[in-house]
Structures are given as structure tokens and as C-alpha cells.
């Protein structure tokens, strides 16, 4: 599998980042290198191996259903813009 400029553009667009031509070109090479490596991995025979669903060997830790209070001012303190305890963002509507 290989990645061309249009795929890089698409991924950048989905990730909402702007790339210069040069960055785009670099990323294309890096991504292709990674995919080549994955192709190498695919050559290993895994017929007898159970698929690994996660890199963790332990079970997920759970917590009790208890409420901890939060602080509105604190949560809004990093907001570039706020109004009446709302975050304010440029108009987004589909």
C-alpha cells in the first residue's frame, strides 16, 4: 500500500491541520515508511496466534459511581472566550 499526496491532504483535512507542500511531502514519506514496515509484519505467520485486542495484559480498573464536584471558573479559565459560563466559539453549524 502506498500513500500519495491526496491521501495526506485528506488526513490533514480530517485532522484540521494545515500543511505546507514541504511538510506534506515529508509526511508522505514517513507514512509510507510506516506502512512498508507494517507490510513486513504481515509476513509473519499468525494462524495459530490469538488476535491481541490490546497491549495491556491486565483488566480495566473500575471506579464506584460517586460524584465529585467541579468548579466552573476553573474549567473556563483556559477558554479564549466565554460568556455567562459558556465557552464561546466561532459559529459552527452544519
Amino acid at each position, binding site marked *: 500500500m502506498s500513500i500519495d499526496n491526496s491521501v495526506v491532504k*485528506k488526513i490533514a483535512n*480530517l*485532522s*484540521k491541520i494545515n500543511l505546507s507542500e514541504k511538510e506534506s511531502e515529508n509526511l508522505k514519506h514517513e507514512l509510507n515508511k510506516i506502512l512498508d514496515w507494517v507490510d513486513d509484519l504481515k509476513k509473519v505467520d499468525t494462524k495459530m496466534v490469538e488476535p491481541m*485486542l*490490546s*497491549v*495491556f495484559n*491486565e*483488566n*480495566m*480498573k*473500575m*471506579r*464506584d*459511581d*460517586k*460524584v*465529585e*464536584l*467541579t468548579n*466552573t471558573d476553573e*474549567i*473556563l479559565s483556559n477558554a479564549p*472566550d466565554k*460568556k*455567562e*459560563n*459558556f*465557552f*464561546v*466559539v*466561532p*459559529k*459552527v*453549524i*452544519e
Partner: protein
Amino acid sequence: MSYFIRGHESKWEVVLGLEVHAQINSLSKLFSPSSTGYGAEPNSQVNLIDAGMPGALPVINQECVKQAVITGLGLNAKINLKSIFDRKNYFYPDLPQGYQISQFENPIVGSGHLIIEAEEGTKKIGITRLHLEQDAGKSIHDQDFENSFIDLNRSGCALMEIVSEPDLRSPSEVSLYIKKLRSILRYLGSCDGNMEKGNLRVDVNVSVRRFDAELGTRCEIKNINSIKFIQQAIEYEARRQVKLIESGKIVEQQTRLFDSQKGETRAMRSKEESHDYRYFPDPDLPPLILEKKMIEDLKLQLPELPDKKKIRFIETYGIKKYDAEILVSEKEVAEYFEKLVSDRDPKMVVTWLTGELFSYLNKKNLDNPQSAISVEKFGELLDLINDGTLSNRLAKELFVEFIESNMSASELVKKKGMVQISDENEIINMIETVLDQNQKMLEEYRSGKEKLFGFFVGQIMKISNGKANPQMVNTLLTKRLKK
């Protein structure tokens, strides 16, 4: 064949599948300890995880896992002992993490089913899966021209996404499915099922095909907040698709929204912009492993669900299937009925409960009969009707006043002088008076005009001010006229 869309060329079958998002009834969120309370001040229930702060790590809420398992069991579904959480990536201001933690390939609950009573009879609707995921925050677009406002209180609340097989064939089947699912969720206590508050949200997949043909391309209609609108949306969307196909065009796979004011569906996003979510396992979360014993224990604790309760009601109380269906659909109604019926005539209880009381509840927009009138108070009224103190007719007339007063049934009867006349001699006297005043009619009756029986009954009821016991009037008048 029941429901179909009639096109120019042929009849079209409508194929429907549902994705229901049900908010889990928990105190705190799926991966964070902030409160899930409804209607709080904006951004007052948001911690570092819900706000997507770098480095904040999710820890799963045990209660949410339990509720998902219980719901799976209630839907006759396979519980997966091992499930995985994935990141579903997309950008939107009310999703501060930049991804939603969800489950993709390995959900906590696998295939199951529920039963609906469709027009053609009992129908089994397949459930594909149920998975756990985070809710997003809320965006408000109509407060300002240039900006949107974001409230993250809902961000991170636990949702169960319940996906059905494309087994539904009409808007009314969809309505039955949603009502049944909602009823089961409420019996289990895992979700309030309140569509207005948004804790039950429905997306519908609609496609059409000629009968017995292969499945057509589907469109998804998102987030419709009432059963009525869902039915309208399906009808509109199915007709739109039939029109397209019959005029030689193709149905594009799209996400659409329903405009309830115009009664039409519109494309939300075009295909080029269609989302590519780039799912991958969330590296912050190990697999969720469940113990068999936990599932067995929860199975034992399951309450009696509506289908089983319905069968028991029919067998125990000898009531009609139709009535039983109504009584069991709301857990509170079923409980109320059982308390009320304990030492009373089931037929009478059903008639009064589903008749007078339900129409009152509808008028007042109430769900729970207990919130309108206590079992004890209602029961006393039924007992007074039953022993003949109060007539059915008078009881109906007084019903609303009775519910809204602080008086007991016997107090009200006394105050209103409404006690039914069940004294034999008194009724005989009335009969004689009426016959005396209507000699001519009596002769006509005797010469064969038997229709006049009703006239005499009417006159007797009139002079008794409606208080004479109608059954006794009938019996005694028949006896008197035979003389």
C-alpha cells in the same frame, strides 16, 4: 404484505433499522466522576477529562458497565466477556477530546432481540449490538449571530447505543419498537427513556426495495426527538427514495436531518465531506473483562419484564391481551394495577383504570397514576360502586372533582347526597308513580309495544334524580309489568 409505498411502476417495501442512544441512569459520567444531573448551570459538571485536558486519564464507572450488561440481558442478548474501547475521531467544538470513546469491533453486548405486537401478529426484531460510549456536549447556535455557545455538562455522560437489525417494515412498527425498547429500559432502570430531555435519541436508517428484491441504499435520518416526527420522517424519506429510483436516479448514501416544520428530510453533509472516523483502540484503556459470575448474578436480579408480566396478567386476572399490553407498558401502571386489583374484580378495575383514570392522566400529561390518585382512594370509589352505594354513571360524573378533592369517596358521596337508592320499597314506589302518571303508555305496552320499557326506566331514573340503582329498576319493573 402490509405497509408499502405505491410508486408509478410498482409497490415498494420500506426497510428500516434503528440506532437508539440511551443515556445510562448513573450519578456520575462514564469515564469521569462529574455529575450527570439534568438542567444544571452551564459547565458546572465538567472535570478535566470531560474538558479534554491533556494528561487526564479516563477510569470507567462500574455502574455503567453493570447497567449495560443488565440491558443486554433484558434484550435477550449475548454478553461479551471481553470488549474493547476505541476512539472515534472527529472535530467539533462540543467534543473537546477530538474523539469520542466508543466501542467499534468488540462491543460489550452482541446480538439479541425484542418482541413487538405488530398488526400481523407477534414479530421478533433482531438487535445487532449494544455498545458503551461517551456523549458529546451541547452547542447552542441561536443566541448570537457570530458565535456558538458550548456547554460541556453532557460531555462524557454514558450512552448505550442500541442497534437493531433492518427488520422493521413500517413507521408503526418503528413506533412499537421504540415504545417496547423504552419500556424495557425503564423496567430495568438503566435509562429514563425521556425523549424530550434527550436521554433517548433515535436515528433511523431508511431504504426501499421492490418486494423480495435485494436491499436498497440506505439513508440515515439523525436525531428526531419524538415518535410522531420519526413516523413522518420515514414516510417522507421513503417516498423521496421511490421517486428518485423510479425516475432513473440513484439513492445516495447520506446522513439527513428531519425538518419538523416543513415535514421533510434534508441532506446534512454531502458525500465528499462524509466522515471518516479513523477508529483505533484507545491506548488509555485496557480491555474490559467481565466475570461470568457477575453476569449470572445480574441475571438472577432481573425484574419481571413486560412480556412475561403480560402473560402473567392474562393468566392470573383473566383480562384481555389488549388490556394487558396497555397495563404492562409502563412499570408504574403495572404496579398500580396489581395493588388496585388485589381484592377487586379485574374487569372493573381494568375498565376504570384504562378508561376514566387514563383519560384524566392524558389530559394532565401525567405518566404515573399514583401521582394523580392513591391506590387506596381510587379503590374505595370502586368498592362503593361495587356494593351499589354509588352508580357507575354518577361516579363517572364526579370523577375529576373526586380526584382533585381531598375527600375520600364516602365523604364525597355523603356531601353530594349522591348515595344510590338501592332500597326495594323506595324503588317500587317510584315505579308505581311513573306507571300511574303514564296510564296510556302502560296500555300500549301491554298491547305489545315493548319498546316502551326503556321509556319507563328513563322516567324512573328521572324522578330519582339519577340515583335509583339501574339494575334493581330493571328487575323490579320487569317483575311489575308481568303482573
